[in-house]
């Protein structure tokens, strides 16, 4: 019974909309423009967040975390100062302790970092980011090598004078010849080029290709023992498979690795329960926090502006529905006289405005999908329209239709039957 009423109402509504295609389509167009705007804004922000995620992953490794003395960023100056006061530096013996108690949950690679010039022949690359590290970093940070290889365990144990160059440095020092096998100079010592890192591009305006990788012991020979180390960690990759199929399971293993690192460090520093960590663990999530905040602020500004567009569209649909009610005054009067209830009329009017709005919403969605596809193809970007975005944008259109129908519906069911019938 109830369903029949609704179906009938939708049928009436559809006929009324079809009878005045121009009016209905202008109402739908208004909603379409608003919905398309919403979808484009949301997808654009999504794409920005995705881009940020990828760049941080490139700079960091997807599932890696870092044990460090103090993580800068995201904390107030006071917290930072407290941490500086309490947290001890991470030493080589800390790293050895971590390694000894790694179990099967986690692999570690220590990293010592400083800036130094890299020279070859008459050419010098200023202020390269020189990293002393171990072979395990290759796996932990998913470093991609374009030519040659990364530092091996053998290089590590021999403290070999070998180096893997970032793309900017390789370009600058070897404009016309193959860098592999050549010997560059860092801090007055010769390092044989064994590998070239794949080009990483930039993250937030800084190049990620100014990196140089050498074995940690060679680093210490060149620069002296580093005062403070960072330790990269990651849950070991099983079966040599670098991309586990089950992402959820992977997330759990990352947490387990992080947990193991934390408990090991706490044991090492002999921290009683209840005392806070005297070290920091940076996760990709934390590193992403900044970008997230920027995206949140942008959407905080963009959302109300897009909402105003939807509001304007609601007004337009209200108007078209109102006109439709006015034009059908007589018809409504006759139907009321023949026994149609107020509720039926209300339902019918709201169905009409919802129909127009949802049709417009679908049109807007289709148009924005087209724009996204076109822009994606033209600019070579990945701009996926998410199913959730599509769903709630249609939902927003339907709700707009509902709101737009309220006032006209009230006008319609308040009509006096006698005057309505008498009207021309």
């Amino acid at each position, binding site marked *: 019974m109830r369903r029949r009423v609704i179906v009938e109402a939708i049928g009436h509504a559809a006929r009324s909309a079809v009878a005045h295609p121009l009016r209905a389509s202008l109402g739908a167009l208004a909603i379409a423009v608003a919905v398309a705007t919403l979808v484009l804004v949301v997808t654009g922000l999504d794409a920005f967040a995705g881009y940020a995620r990828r760049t941080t992953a490139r700079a960091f490794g997807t599932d890696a975390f870092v044990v460090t003395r103090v993580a800068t960023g995201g904390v107030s100056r006071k917290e930072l100062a407290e941490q500086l006061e309490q947290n001890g530096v991470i030493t080589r013996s800390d790293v050895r302790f971590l390694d000894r108690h790694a179990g099967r949950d986690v692999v570690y690679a220590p990293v010592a970092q400083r800036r130094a010039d890299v020279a070859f022949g008459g050419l010098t690359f200023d*202020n390269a980011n020189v990293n002393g590290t171990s072979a395990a970093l290759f796996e932990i940070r998913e470093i991609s090598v374009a030519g040659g290889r990364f530092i091996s365990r053998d290089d590590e144990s021999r403290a070999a004078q070998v180096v893997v160059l970032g793309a900017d440095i390789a370009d600058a020092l070897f404009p016309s010849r193959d860098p592999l096998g050549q010997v560059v100079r860092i801090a007055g010592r010769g390092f044989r080029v064994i590998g070239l890192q794949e080009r990483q591009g930039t993250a937030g305006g800084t190049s990620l290709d100014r990196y140089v990788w050498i074995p940690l012991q060679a680093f210490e020979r060149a620069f002296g023992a580093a005062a403070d180390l960072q330790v990269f960690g990651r849950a070991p990759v099983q079966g040599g498979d670098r991309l586990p199929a089950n992402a959820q399971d992977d997330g759990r293993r990352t947490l387990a690795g992080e947990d193991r690192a934390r408990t090991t460090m706490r044991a090492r520093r002999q921290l009683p329960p209840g005392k806070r960590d005297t070290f920091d663990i940076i996760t990709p999530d934390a590193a992403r926090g900044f970008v997230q905040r920027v995206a949140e602020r942008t959407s905080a500004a963009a959302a109300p502006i897009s909402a105003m567009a939807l509001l*304007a569209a609601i007004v337009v649909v*209200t108007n078209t529905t109102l006109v439709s009610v006015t034009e059908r005054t007589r018809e409504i009067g006759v139907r009321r006289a023949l026994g149609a209830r107020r509720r039926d009329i209300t339902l019918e009017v709201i169905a009409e405005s919802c129909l127009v709005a949802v049709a417009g919403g679908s049109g807007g969605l289709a148009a924005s999908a087209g724009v996204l596809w076109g822009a994606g193809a033209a600019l070579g970007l990945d701009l996926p329209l998410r199913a959730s975005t599509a769903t709630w944008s249609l939902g927003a259109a339907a709700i707009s239709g509902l709101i737009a129908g309220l006032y006209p519906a009230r006008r319609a069911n308040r009509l006096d039957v006698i005057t309505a019938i008498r009207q021309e």
Partner: protein
Amino acid sequence: MALARSSRDWRNALAESAGLAGDSIRSQPARSVLAILGIVIGIVTVVLVASILANVRNQVALLFRELGTENVFAFHLTGDPYSPPSELEARRKPLEASFAVELERSRGAIREVAVQVLVPAIVNNRALAARAGSRESDSPLVEGASSNFFEVVGAEFAAGRPFTELEDRSGAHVAVIGASLARALYGNRRAVGESLTLDGETYFVVGEIAPRKGGFFGENRQDSVLSLPAVTVRKRFSDADNVVLYVRAQPGQREAARAQTEAVLRRLRRLKAADENDFTLSTADSIIRSLDQVSAGVALITLALAAVSLVIGGIGIANVQVISARERTREIGLRLAVGAPRRDVLTQFVLEAAILSTAGGLAGVACAVGIGLLLGLFLSGFSAVPPAWAVAAGLVVSCGVGVVAGYWPARQASRLDPVEALRYE
């Protein structure tokens, strides 16, 4: 003659259309009000967004103007002096405070030179905090300043005085503090004459600077400033080696002063003719210009987004005009049949649409100003008056939207076949 006649015709048509538009609004009030409301929403969005953008921009601009518009700032890095150096500039050595003397000695377009020494927020692994009795502020902006610094940047003193030259030269323990810091440390008491401790040393407050006008969302770091004599800072904080030189030009000679500063600094830094500058000179205007360039894109996108509402408002107007034209088919047919030129019909409908949407525009601007006034109550320094260009553009665009939206229905109406139209029920 022809011109006069046509202008009179135009005026008649306008008056007639206004009358007809008034009639149609009176006969269908709900419909017209809704059409106008659509435009109102669009204009409110655009004007309000423009107003907020202009406010933020002006406040930020003021932030830099307060450093003195006639000054040239010299620093060894490009960009924000409180950010770490970029990789390319990491090698640059800070400027030296003694350069100020050399610059002043070169005379010419340079009137005087002030020195500002930046103290990092964290010294010896501890955040600098200022204390007075039981009160504490953990975020003072500590800096060293030469005795002429406050005059060069045109700082206004709420109470007290700047450092004397003797205090600067002898490294005296005196301080000039910003308004927020004074409130944090002394509440409503008078700050001048009191003392404060910073990093284990006691300083006497000799001056308090009046609250700054500019800011970023109502915040101005300069209000938390804790200035000590530059020499005192160099003695007390060995990490503080970042020096900003404020070169005050002779009236109207800022560009000459800039060139002169560049030449002197190049000589002092022993740069060869082919070397690039290893320092950056900027002025309040140049900083604001480059900020404007950066923010122009953002502003444009935001305004475009806001304009979507206006487009939708236009669709609403078009809709009402389509309906109105259809309802008046017979009337139009009659007018055409008795010899009204088609152009008159066209003009009438376009003008009607324009009148509707301009009414919406006026109401929208009024609403935006009202909302701006409300915002002004909550945000200090927010100017409720929207920028003139936004109001003008809003009105012109709303009128234009009406013309564009009204044109198509109007053309349809003016092309009616009178015979068909008269037969229309």
